[in-house]
Each structure stands twice: as C-alpha cells, then as structure tokens.
C-alpha cells in the first residue's frame, strides 16, 4: 500500500465516525494541553530565574563571610566539619585590609562590604521599617541595577539615595518619575554600645536600659530601582541604597546580626560580609580558592544555581507526571475507539483480506488511524495549552500588578516543546493503537465474511 492511500483511507474511515473521532481527538487534546501547560510553566519558572540570575550579574558574584558568621552551621548535625577551617584560632576579621587584599586578586572587579542599617523610612506621610544597605557609588553602574526612573548616585558623599519601586509603592507612590528629586527621611536608630552588657540580655529584651537614639537624615531620591528579586542571599536586596559617605555620618546600630554583637564585645568590629563582583564567571573558582586560603568562607551563587537547576529538573518531572495522567486517560480513549472500530468494521476487514490485504496492510491501516488522532490531538492540544496558559498568565499578572510586581511571563514555550508535544502525542497514540492493530490483523476472513 502507498503512504498516500494509507493516509486517505484512514482519514476517510475516521471521518465516517465523526462524533466519535472528534471526541477521541478532544480527549488527546486535553491530555496534551495539560502536559504542555504543566511543562511550559516549569520551563517558564526556570527561564525567569535563570534570566534574572544572568541579568543581575549574579554568576559573577561572590559573598565572603568571616568564619564565625557561619558558626551556626557547625551545630548542624548534617554538616560535615570543615577541615580546612582554622580550628581553635580566632576567626579572620573582615576589615579594610582584607577587603583590599581581595580587591587586588585577579578577576576581581569590585569589592564592597555588606553593611545594612536598620532604619525607618518616611515619605509623604507614610513610613516603613527597612534594613538600609550601604552601596558604594561605583557599584551603581553595574548590571545589578536597573532603574525605572533616574539613575544611581554619582559619588559616595552625595546626599542621595536609591529606592526600589516596590517600597515606593508601599509608601503610596505608584509612579516613580515624579518621585525623583523629592526629599525622603531616613530615621536611623543608634545607641551607646558601651552601656550594653550582653549579660543583661534579659533586661535588654524587656526594653529596659536600652538608650536608643533616633536621628533623621534627609536625602534626595536620585533613582528608582526596578524591584529586586529576593531569592537567596543576593548581594543587593534592600529597598533603600545609600552612599557610604552619608552612612558614615548617620547614627546607627553597628551591627545587623547577633554575631556582630559578640565581635563588638571583643573589640573586633569588622564587616559581617563582603560582596565581591568578578569581571567574568570564569574567575569564580580561582577567587573562591584564594579567599578560602585566607581563612574566609565564600558563598558563590553559581554553586547555588546548580542546586536550583536540579530543583527545576525535579519540578519539571513532577509537573510532567501530572500531565501524563491526562495522557494515559486519553490513550485509553484511543484504545476504546479503535477496538470499537474493529468490531464495527469486522466484515470490512474480512473483505479487505479476501481481496488481498496482508496482515501488515490491516495493521498499518489501524496504526495510521490512531496516529492521525494523535497528530490532530497533539496540534490542538498544544494550541489549547498555549491558550489556557496565556489566559492564566494574564489573570495572575493582573492581580500581581496591583501589588507592584512587574509583568512576568510565567510560561515558556521553547521550540522543542511544540515539536515534542506533537511527536509525543503521535507516539502515545501509536502505542495505544498497537493492541487494536494486532487484533484487527488477526481477524479471520472466513468468520468475518460470514459475519452478516
């Protein structure tokens, strides 16, 4: 039999039983649609995360911690003790000397300390509590920042700040452009460290003997940053960024976590962490090694990203498995349709055999019919999955937009998904056609012709 005859004969046969064919194709459509929507969602998430990692330059970033900052980890029973860490010796203090040593390493573009100040941000009659981050002016020009209005401050001494569009919205300003040039008040909290005794922690917790001092600093908004994703310890994740010169003049708590407190007691007041930006991701490994050699801990987002990728693989598989359930149901529909078709066409199969159709010819007729169901189901299923995910995407974005979240494409349809969905649909349909095709080929012509 010629290929063309197979196709024509199959379509003619399917078209003879329009309603049943349409219903069976619809079953496959729903199955493939569900699978496509699931997989495209997983892929969309992965693409968004990968994309933001890349656009924020995170593959070029390292965070350097002092050993004691990570001390909490040592109590984790799952954590293998780090043999390379200098045991017993007092941990390396991260101060400006260390900063300069790291800055001098090959491939290091910028190093800036991770300094965050607790403060109350006041603007247009509203206020929000935030950890304000100190970021040098030279970092402002990096790819880490994207501004929806204005730009970063030009010098470390400027009376300026950068605010996120998210915080601005929380403060009741939806449109970033008019906010530029406005003055904003940062109320930092300071207190006299010499009068603080950790032994009096109980008293401190009850609010006694804590002489807090609030001090207002008025700064100009020079830039509104696009909302930063808050996934993991990325170098800049604060809603307010200040130049170091301004921060130095402010009264502030000299710590942002409990370890700083203990260091302060020992008179060893360094930075809690350093943010390191490299000129290329290729330098991640060598710099990590060098910094670890200084007795410091290094956290690379690139490493974290491998874990994230593995997580996405699992997520995609789970989503695909859910989609598969619909496919299995649809394929049972195909089996049912084809078996019904054999019963109805029993004498027709007998006639075909009597006039010279081989078992192979009969088998192929049925395989072609089920694969045509699969082809149409695959194409329509892809269209359905695409349409439904488009609608969901719009709905989700509509609600998130109200909360100041920018438009995100939650679903991704790579080319392989288009072709893969259709090919998979045809393959599943062929598999569903195996039993009916074998059964049709085994029809005994003598019995079939006596059928009526």
């Amino acid at each position, binding site marked *: 039999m*010629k290929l063309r005859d197979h196709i024509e004969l199959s379509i*003619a046969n399917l078209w003879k039983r329009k309603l049943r064919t349409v219903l069976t194709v619809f079953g496959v459509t729903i199955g493939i649609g569900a699978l496509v929507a699931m997989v495209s969602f997983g892929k969309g998430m992965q693409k968004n995360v990968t994309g933001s990692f890349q656009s924020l330059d995170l593959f070029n970033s390292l965070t350097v911690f002092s050993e004691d900052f990570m001390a909490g980890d040592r109590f984790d029973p799952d954590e293998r003790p780090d043999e390379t860490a200098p045991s017993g010796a007092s941990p390396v203090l991260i101060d400006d000397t260390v900063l300069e040593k790291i800055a001098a390493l090959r491939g290091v573009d910028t190093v800036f300390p991770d300094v965050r100040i607790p403060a109350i941000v006041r603007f247009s009659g509203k206020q929000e509590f935030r950890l304000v981050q100190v970021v040098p002016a030279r970092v402002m020009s990096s790819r880490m920042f994207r501004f929806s209005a204005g730009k970063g401050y030009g010098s470390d001494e400027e009376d300026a700040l950068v605010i996120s569009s998210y915080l601005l919205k929380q403060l009741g300003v939806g449109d970033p452009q008019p906010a530029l040039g406005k003055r904003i008040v940062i109320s930092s909290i300071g207190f006299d460290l010499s009068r603080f005794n950790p032994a009096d922690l109980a008293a401190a917790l009850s609010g006694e003997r804590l002489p807090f001092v609030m001090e207002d600093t008025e700064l100009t908004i020079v830039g509104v940053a696009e909302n930063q994703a808050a996934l993991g310890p990325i170098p800049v994740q604060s809603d307010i960024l200040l130049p170091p010169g301004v921060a130095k003049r402010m009264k502030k708590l000299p710590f942002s976590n409990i370890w700083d407190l203990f260091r302060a007691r020992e008179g060893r007041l360094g930075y809690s962490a350093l943010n390191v930006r490299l000129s290329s991701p290729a330098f991640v490994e060598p710099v990590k090694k060098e910094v670890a050699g200084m007795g410091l801990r290094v956290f690379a987002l690139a490493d974290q990203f491998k874990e994230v990728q593995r997580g996405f693989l699992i997520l995609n598989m789970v989503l695909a498995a859910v989609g598969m359930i619909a496919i299995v149901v649809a394929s049972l529909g195909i089996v049912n349709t084809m078996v019904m078709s054999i019963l109805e066409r029993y*004498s027709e199969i007998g*006639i075909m055999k*009597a*006039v*010279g159709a081989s078992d192979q*010819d009969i088998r192929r007729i049925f395989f072609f019919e089920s694969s045509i169901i699969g082809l149409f189901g695959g194409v329509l299923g892809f269209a359905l999955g695409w349409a439904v995910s488009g609608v969901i995407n719009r709905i989700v974005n509509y609600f998130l937009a109200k909360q100041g979240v920018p438009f995100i494409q939650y679903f991704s349809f790579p080319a392989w998904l288009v072709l893969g969905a259709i090919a998979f649909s045809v393959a599943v349909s062929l598999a569903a056609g195996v039993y009916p095709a074998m059964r049709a080929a085994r029809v005994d*012509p*003598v019995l079939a012709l006596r059928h009526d």
Partner: protein
Amino acid sequence: MAIGPHRTPDPKQGGTLGNVPILISGLSKVYATAKVRVVALQDINLGFEEGVFAAVTGASGSGKSTLLNLLGGLDTPTSGTIEVGGRNISEMSREDLALYRRSQVGMIFQSFNLIPGFSALENVALPLIFSGTAKRERRKLAAEMLARVGLGARTSHRPSELSGGEQQRVAIARALINRPRVLLADEPTGNLDSRTSREIVTLLADLNRDQGLTVIMVTHEEALAREFAGRGVRLSDGTVQAEVKWR
C-alpha cells in the same frame, strides 16, 4: 463482452502461471472446538483443468463453501494439499497467501461483500490499493472493468443504491480487477431472483468462454449448474459423492 484476464502479466503480482490446473489431494478440514469436532471436508481428491467452468453442488453443510474458502486461500486445510499452477497453497505463509488472494484468484460471494461506505468504483478499485497501484491508474482500471460488466453508468453509486444483480456485477468486477486466472464464486445467485441469477451465471459463462477464465461456482441450484457449467462435483457430508462431465 470482453474481459481480458491476462494482457500483460505483472511480475509484482507473484508471477503468472502459464497453465493453472488445480490439484486437490487428500484434503481434509476439521473444525475443532473444546467440545465439538466438526469434519467439514474429508479426504477430497479433485482436479480442475485450466479454463473449466465447474459447479460444486450439494446440500447445505456438505462442505462446498469450506472447499471454496480453502481454494481461495482464506482458510488453511487440516491436512492434504491444494496445488494451483504447481504451487502448494496449503503451505504458504500468511503473507504469501495474501499475495495469492490478491493476484491469482478472485472471489465473489452470496452476500456480495461490498464495502457499504465505498462507491461502486471504489469497491472495484480496492484490491489495487493493496498492490500499490497509483490512484489515477486505479480509477481508470476500475472504470473500465465496471463498463465491461455493464455498469459504466453507475460508478459513483453506493452498494445500497444498486440492485442485487448490480451489486454482484460490482463484486465480479472487483474479483477480476487484478486479472486472476481463477474466479471462485460462492453461491453467487443465492440472494438474487431467478431472472437476475441467469444473467449473472451467463456473465460468468461468457467470461469462461471468451477469456478462458477458470470458474469454480458453488451452488445449490443444480438446474442452473447443469445448464451453464461444463462439469459438476457433488459433495455430501464432506466427501465427493459424484463427479459429472456435462459437456
């Protein structure tokens, strides 16, 4: 009426058999289920020379149709051999049997066995699909064959729109489309009135006389058989009861 069974032999069709005598020896067919054992044919020995018009008669259940199904390669014998043109069809693979049915024999039946959803033309062209003939060629050959059986004007009709006699003519055209040397007819007049029956058997006799087509016709109408066939075989309870030569 001229129906040429063999103008140019097609080697793809399994080769043509120059002389196609049919030799049946020791042929038995037993249908056995778990409980019942039915002997349909028992030790049949028969020979049909090429170009004969033979009638196989007998009461119902005598094994006539079983014999024809075995000759047509639709069924396989329990024991014994059937040689057509020197080839033993009882030992053929399923694939070879399909090829044999497609090219060496044509069959017609009491209930015509046309595909209801197909037009007369499509029914006649059906066997050509399996031999891989192109569509345009199929339609041309089928139209010619329908014209030869007197149905040139009814090519687009469905079987349900044709009379019994017309349906049987379509079936004959289909049986001959691949130009076989042997036509097997299983009660071809069983569903027809007496006038139409005569027309159909006359057509078979013409094909036999004009084209040298071997025709083996199973029938219970002995009078009709005697009038048209050259020889007769009477079966009874699965065995040959009598062999007659009428002309």
